[in-house]
């Protein structure tokens, strides 16, 4: 299928580019109309990670003078380099958003070095000084929104047992699990969060099985970190459990069971990036932010959320939005094996790069990273 896609692109657009090129000479790198390329690892409408990015791309399409080209289901291999090449050479893209974690090293780094005049904005990677200056990595502290979900879940759960369906034990996922668990403990100090790893980003049958096993264990509020939360949300709601969403708002799937959720806010961030480039400003190579910077947001509360939970969650949200900020990972933090992972007295603020190397599960989480 890869073959079909590439050859079609080459044939149709290659043909078009040839005619254009012959008529108007070489295309300038920055035309009056800016072309922006979006590359997704999965399906653009997966009710999850890729859809969140596609919503951001849709927001860019509304800006006059901006043309968006998109390609979905591009694997995290050499295939992404081919896609980037064709977006640059055939579509004239000058800004690229390869949105999947695994694209960054070595693929984006290599492409950015090859095309030093173009911009590459990668989601989730860790840009370092050694990487090309025209590449950048941006990401959102979605754990802030997960923390809010955790508070709401902690108040809503009757059994005090929460569940988390996770894909892989990588730092970003562990950070979400820990933030959710810590938020829940704020609401109910005895709350536990049980995590099940499915092993990959999109495993619908495993996700459904994990959801059922958690509910069998007495879990009554669930959330997840997988690419498409639809399976978890629908199966949990069918069993009468409550859910917190992830990536995008899944409340239409389970209106009664949906409490709140941690959502990306790319439709606010991407137009900001484009305006910065249009104004001649440079986007910081290492771009991070949370609720305050409008990179993440929380879903509106569902009807099952109590007034008490709303009040507490809104208080914490206000702290995240305040000038001094709020630290989720405070000193004296113990992991679920009893080891102190953050020494007493040293609060790790959200921007602390140490948090992006997280390899532990905090006290109150049932599960293991390996």
């Amino acid at each position: 299928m890869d073959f079909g896609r590439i050859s079609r692109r080459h044939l149709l657009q290659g043909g078009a580019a040839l005619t254009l090129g012959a008529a108007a000479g070489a295309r300038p790198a920055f035309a009056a109309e800016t072309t922006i390329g979006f590359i997704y690892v999965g399906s653009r409408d997966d009710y999850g990670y890729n859809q969140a990015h596609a919503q951001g791309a849709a927001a860019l399409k509304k800006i006059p003078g901006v043309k968006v080209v998109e390609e979905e289901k591009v694997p995290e291999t050499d295939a992404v380099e081919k896609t980037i090449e064709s977006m640059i050479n055939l579509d004239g893209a000058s800004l690229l958003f390869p949105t999947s974690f695994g694209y960054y090293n070595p693929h984006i780094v290599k492409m950015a070095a090859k095309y030093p005049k173009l911009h590459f904005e990668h989601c989730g990677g860790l840009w370092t000084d050694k990487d090309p200056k025209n590449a950048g990595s941006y990401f959102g502290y979605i754990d802030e929104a997960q923390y809010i979900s955790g508070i709401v879940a902690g108040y809503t759960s009757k059994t005090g047992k929460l569940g988390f369906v996770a894909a892989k034990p990588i730092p970003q996922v562990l950070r979400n699990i820990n933030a959710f668990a810590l938020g829940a403990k704020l609401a109910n100090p005895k709350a536990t969060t049980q995590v099940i790893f499915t092993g990959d980003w999109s495993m619908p049958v495993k996700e459904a099985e994990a959801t059922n096993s958690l509910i069998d264990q007495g879990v009554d509020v669930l959330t997840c970190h997988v690419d498409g939360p639809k399976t978890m949300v629908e199966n949990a709601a069918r069993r009468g459990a409550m859910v917190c969403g992830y990536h995008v708002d899944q409340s239409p799937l389970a209106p009664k069971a949906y409490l709140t959720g941690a959502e990306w806010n790319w439709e606010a961030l991407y137009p900001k990036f484009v305006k910065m480039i249009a104004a001649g400003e440079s986007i910081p190579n290492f771009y991070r932010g949370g609720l305050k910077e409008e990179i993440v947001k929380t879903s509106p509360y569902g009807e099952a959320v109590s007034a008490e939970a709303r009040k507490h969650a809104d208080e914490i949200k206000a702290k995240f939005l305040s000038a001094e900020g709020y630290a989720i990972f405070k000193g004296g933090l113990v992991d679920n094996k009893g080891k102190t992972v953050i020494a007493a007295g040293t609060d790790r603020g959200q921007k602390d790069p140490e948090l992006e190397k997280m390899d532990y599960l905090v006290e109150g989480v049932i599960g293991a990273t390996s």
Partner: protein
Amino acid sequence: MADGSIGLWTVSLAVLGGAIRVSTPFLFVSLGECITERSGRINLGLEGTLVMGAMSAYGISYLTGSPWLGLLAAGITGALLGALHAGICSLPRVNDVAVGIALMLFGTGLAFYLGKPLIEPTAPRLPAIDFGWWSDIPQVRAALRVNVLFLIGVALAPTLYWAFRATRWGLLIRTAGESSDAARAMGHSVLLIRLRATMVGGFLAGIGGSFLSLFYPGSWNEGLSSGQGITAVALVIFARWDPLLCLWASLAFGGAAALGPALQSVGVTSGYHLFNAAPYVLTLAIMIITCSPKRTLTGAPAELSITR
């Protein structure tokens, strides 16, 4: 029990529940492939048929509001794909394995293409029958919520077993599979028998797909099958072309799929990748134990291109 937890019992219950929930697509695809292979042809395209069945069932159920019409649509789609496979294979010097692989890619590709607008909407699902009414424990009740397709599949396995031994058309399929010359000498068209067998196989695989999208996990998305169709084709060899063994093998695979998440949920967290791989390790082990360089696999139809 007061807190709603039943501890380690969950694992056995989850494996039982998983065997019932997860096994149905395996069961339908493997029974369908069993019929096709017994007629002397191998259809590797059933992965594509499964995915097409899942997509068309979801689409029709969403458009008409009736999951049963969706089920029927999945079966018809499967039968048509089966007819396509059989049609191409009836041309001279065509390799059925290669055609199967091509149709697998065609089926999944077409389903992803046509299924794009179906990812977001929610379609009506097939109902479940509650067999856990006698129990007060919610976990038991949940494990015993059985879909009627599972029951049909379970009933179909012994029926096929009997049909292959005792009915006229069962014997005809086997004759075509064991010796096409014998079937021809009896005045039957081998191609026609294989066409019908492949269409029935496709029909069943399509029904298996509808279970995925209309019952469990219960929605359409592109990762839905993740190779279950091709696993089920391998299951047939594993089950020695015996419908009854297909049933047990499907149940074992379903139960094994539930094992990883269930063990993690009770706190056995180390090595979950290993537990997730359990069904494949099981297959490999049985293959190694039962294979022999001196003879072909027992029960293999003699006309099958992989054993010939």
